[in-house]
C-alpha cells in the first residue's frame, strides 16, 4: 500500500515529528510560506502542497517570485478586478499554484472561466451544497472538458475526466485532499481521521504517527474507505443514480432540496466517456521498434 499523505494545520511541534512523511500543510498567512518550507526542509518532511485559505480576492494576494516551485493550493473568496490581476498574470502562470473559488458566489463561475482561459490553473470548491447552481457548474464543466480553445485545467472536472475509469470509482475529493485512500488528516495531538470534517468532529480512526504503519489493518480505516457501501444498504438514494461512479453520494443530503446534482453528474460522466474516447483516438500510431 502506498504511504498516505498527511494533511494538517501548521503546528511547529507536529511538523518536527513527521520525519520522512509527505504532508499537506494548512496555513492562513502568505508570510508563513517560506518559514514553513524551511522547517519542512530542515526536518526532512516532504511537502506535497501548502493549502492557504485566503479571506479576500485573488487580486489581493501578494504573489511573489520566491514562491516558484512551491506547490500551493489557494482557496479564495473571489477573483477581484482584472485590472489588478492582469499585470501579475505572467508571474501567476509561472508559479506552482492552483486557485479555488467557492460555488456560493455566482460571479465566481465567470471568474473561473476567465482564469482558466488566461492559463491559470484553478478550480471550484463546493460551499453551501443546498444552494449550488448546478446549471452554472454544468456550463463550467462543458467549457472545461469540451472547450476547443486552449485553457488551463479546471478542477474538479479535469481530475474526474483524466482519472475516470469505467471499471472503478472516481473520487474527485482528491482535488481537495479529502480521499482517505490517499490522504489522512492529523492534528497536533496526532489524532488521525479519514477527512477534515471527521477531524473537526473528533471522529478519529487512529492515534499516533506510528499507527500509520499498520493503518491497512485498522478496522475504522477499513470502514472509512468502504463508507460508500452504506449507500448500497438503503432501498433508495444515490446508489440508484446513473452517475454514482463519479459522484459517490457527495450530495446525498443536499439532493433532497436541490436535485440538480443528478443531471450535472450524468453530463459529467458523459464528458468523462468523451474525454476517455478522445484519449484513445489521439494515441499515436506506434510502429515496431528495433
Amino acid at each position: 500500500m502506498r504511504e498516505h499523505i498527511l494533511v494538517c494545520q501548521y503546528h511547529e511541534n507536529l511538523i518536527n515529528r513527521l520525519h520522512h512523511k509527505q504532508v499537506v500543510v494548512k496555513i492562513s498567512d502568505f508570510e508563513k510560506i517560506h518559514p514553513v518550507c524551511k522547517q519542512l526542509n530542515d526536518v526532512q518532511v516532504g511537502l506535497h502542497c501548502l493549502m492557504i485559505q485566503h479571506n479576500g480576492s485573488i487580486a489581493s494576494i501578494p504573489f511573489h517570485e520566491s514562491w516558484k516551485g512551491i506547490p500551493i493550493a489557494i482557496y479564495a473568496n473571489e477573483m477581484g478586478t482584472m485590472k489588478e490581476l492582469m499585470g501579475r498574470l505572467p508571474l501567476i502562470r509561472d508559479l506552482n499554484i492552483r486557485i479555488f473559488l467557492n460555488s456560493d458566489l455566482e460571479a465566481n463561475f465567470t471568474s473561473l472561466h476567465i482564469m482558466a482561459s488566461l492559463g491559470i490553473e484553478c478550480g471550484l470548491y463546493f460551499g453551501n451544497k443546498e444552494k449550488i447552481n448546478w446549471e452554472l457548474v454544468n456550463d463550467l464543466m462543458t467549457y472545461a472538458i469540451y472547450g476547443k480553445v486552449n485553457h488551463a485545467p479546471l478542477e474538479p472536472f479535469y481530475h474526474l475526466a483524466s482519472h475516470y475509469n469505467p471499471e472503478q470509482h472516481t473520487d474527485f475529493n482528491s482535488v481537495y485532499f479529502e480521499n482517505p485512500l490517499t490522504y489522512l488528516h492529523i492534528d497536533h495531538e496526532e489524532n488521525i481521521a479519514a477527512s477534515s470534517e471527521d477531524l473537526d468532529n473528533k471522529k478519529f480512526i487512529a492515534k499516533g504517527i506510528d499507527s500509520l504503519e499498520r493503518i491497512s489493518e485498522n478496522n475504522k480505516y477499513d470502514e472509512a474507505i468502504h463508507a460508500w457501501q452504506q449507500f448500497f444498504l438503503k432501498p433508495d438514494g444515490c446508489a440508484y443514480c446513473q452517475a454514482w461512479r463519479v459522484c459517490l453520494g457527495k450530495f446525498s443530503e443536499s439532493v433532497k432540496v436541490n436535485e440538480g446534482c443528478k443531471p450535472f453528474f450524468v453530463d459529467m460522466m458523459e464528458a468523462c466517456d468523451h474525454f476517455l474516447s478522445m484519449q484513445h483516438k489521439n494515441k499515436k500510431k506506434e510502429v515496431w521498434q528495433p
Partner: protein
Amino acid sequence: MATIIFKPTEKCNSNCIYCDVVVKKKPKTMSLELLEHIFKNMDEFLKAKPKERIQLIWHGGEPLLLGEDYFLKAIEFQENYCKNTKNRIDHAIQSNLTLLNERFLDIFKRLNINQIGTSFEPIPNLRGPGEKRDSVYYNSQFMKGINMLEKHNFGWGFIYVVTKRALRRPLELFFFLSNLKLSGGFMLNPVLVYGEDKEKIGITEEEYADYLGAIFPYWWKNRDRYPQVSPFKMFVENIIEKKRTNGCEDTGACAYGHVYIGPSGEASQCGRAGDWEMISYGNISDRSLLDIMSDQQREQFIKRNDILLNGDCKGCPYWEFCHGGCPLDSFIKNKDFMHRTFRCEGKRLFLEKYFFPITGIRLEK
C-alpha cells in the same frame, strides 16, 4: 469438461424468497465418508478419460456452512486419492459470502479458486436470514465479504434474480447493480418458480422481456461503460460477433456434460433437476461417476435437439442461440423434456421488440 454441480449441504444461513432448496427439503449435509468416496470416483473417472477435466462447483445451500475443516478434508482427499489427476480438477464455488473469512480464502487459494460466484438483492426482505429476511444485516455481511475478496485479489461476479418486485424500477436497479460491480459484470436472470408461487414473485415471459427492454436502450448506448452485463452481452456475442457463449440452458449440449451430486450422494442431471427431483441417475454410493456420466437417460437430451428441430423449433431463426431452452423448463409445463420451453417466448419477444429495432441489426438467414 464434466461439470459437477456439487451440493454437499442443503443448509443455508439465508432464507431467500426465491430459493426452494430450503423450503422443499430437510437440509442435509454430506458425510466425510461420502466426500472421500467422491474424490476416489473423480480419480477413477479422470484416469479412464485421460483427456477429460472435471469442474467441481461447490454449491448449496451455503457451502461455507460446511466449515473450514470440511474443505481441508476435501483437499486431503484430493491429495491422497487424485495424486495424478488433481491437475485436471478445477474447483469453483457459489457462495452468499456472508460467512467468508480469511481462513476460507486460504483454502480457496489451495483449491486454485480465484473467482467466486454469488448473488445480490437490493430490494428489502427478499434475501436474508430468518422469517423476515433481514436484508440489512445480510447485505452488510455481503459487503464485508466482497471487501475481503477484493483485498485478497479474488474476482467475483453475481446473478441478479428478476422477481415481480423488481419490475417497477428496472433502470434504477440496473444502475444500482452496475454501481456495485463496476468491473466484471452480472447477469439478470428471471426468477424460477417451481410449483405454487406462494410469494407472488413469479414473472411472465413478457414481463421479463419488457424488464430487459427497459434497460437495453441505455445499455446499448453505453455498452463500453457496462460491457459485461448478461443477457445483453450474450446476445451481442451470439448475434453480432457470431460467438457461441450461451448459458447452460441454451446450449443444447448439456446431455453428457453435467451432473448433480447431492448431500446423500443422489445424482441427477444438474442442480435444478436435483433440487426438483425431475430425473435420477441413482446414487454415487452405488454407481461410479463414469456410469452416472454415461447414463442412458442422458441420450434423451441429445434426441431432444432432433425432435425440436423437426417439431416445435422447426424454422426458428433463433435456434442457434436457444436450442429450445432448458429441458427442465419444458418439463415444468409439459411433463416431458421434448418440447421447447415457455422461456423461448421471452427471448423472442426481447429480440424482436427491443434488440433488433434498437441495434438496427438484422439476423442473417
